[in-house]
């Protein structure tokens, strides 16, 4: 079974913005709503992984990443274990982004379960 792939730089923007749409273009909210969540659903339906490539952008800010991925739990009410099971990351330029995103996912999970 072939995995679903998503590269932020080519499937969304090379200059991701801030958190919400009203803050500017290419926000985390916009990314999650129009790209990430649909791709996640596709991967889940197919029973495969969603491979997200983080390379090629001019930077992934804290609020962009937190809203994109933390928002899957907070806004889209997805299950934490399911999300970390289905989504896998690729980042050759800056592998630290992966640890950062997993941290936001876990923080969002903890807040939702308080």
């Amino acid at each position, binding site marked *: 079974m072939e995995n679903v792939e998503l590269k932020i730089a080519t499937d969304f923007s090379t200059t991701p913005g*801030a958190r919400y749409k009203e803050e*500017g273009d290419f926000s985390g909210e916009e990314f999650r709503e129009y790209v990430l969540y649909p791709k996640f659903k596709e991967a889940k339906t197919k029973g495969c992984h969603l491979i997200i490539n983080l390379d090629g952008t001019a930077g992934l800010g*804290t*609020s962009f990443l937190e809203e994109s991925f933390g928002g899957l739990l907070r806004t889209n009410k997805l299950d934490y274990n399911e999300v970390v099971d289905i989504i896998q990351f690729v980042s050759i330029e800056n592998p630290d982004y992966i640890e950062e995103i997993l941290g936001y996912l876990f923080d969002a999970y903890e807040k939702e379960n308080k």
Partner: protein
Amino acid sequence: MRMKKKINNQWIVYFAIFGIGVTIGDCINWGYFELDKSISVIDALTLFLTVGITLYIATILDRQFKNEQQESDLIVEQISEVSALLKEIDALIRQESSYNEVNLKIHCIGLAKQNLFEFLKKSYDKNSVDSFEKIFKEKQKKVKDLLTNTPIDKNDLSKISVKKGVVKYTDERIKEIVTEIYSFRTELFKIKLFATTIT
């Protein structure tokens, strides 16, 4: 590893100097020189060894020293790059700036960090490098959060706001960022000292 290599090199130098001394001592006759057409096996070996060691010192060790110097220069260059980026961020935050531009500076620090620790891990003690890397990541994360983490609560405009891609920081947030940048630069200085200290 470096200390071990340097200790081995020192012994080779001592040995070479001793060998040269013995050879010269053999040649010097306090009266006048007498050239002997025959040469003992020991003398021949001593001479051969001394010349060989001298050549070794001149070429291989010199090359090794230059390589180590180059690595050290590359590390210092990466540290300087991070320091320069932090300085640019300091200038950006004091006025309304493009959020993307601030984001890009932090992103570039992340890229420089990859290069920096790649070089450090090749040549320096692993435990020390890992320790520095952990602190670097903490400082980097802290600065990044202060610069790019807009609040989840849309009504919370207390310290950072972004509108149409333009970011504005309150005076309080600017102070926090400047403090963190200063702390970050202090850590960079420690890494530079570590990388350039001769052991």
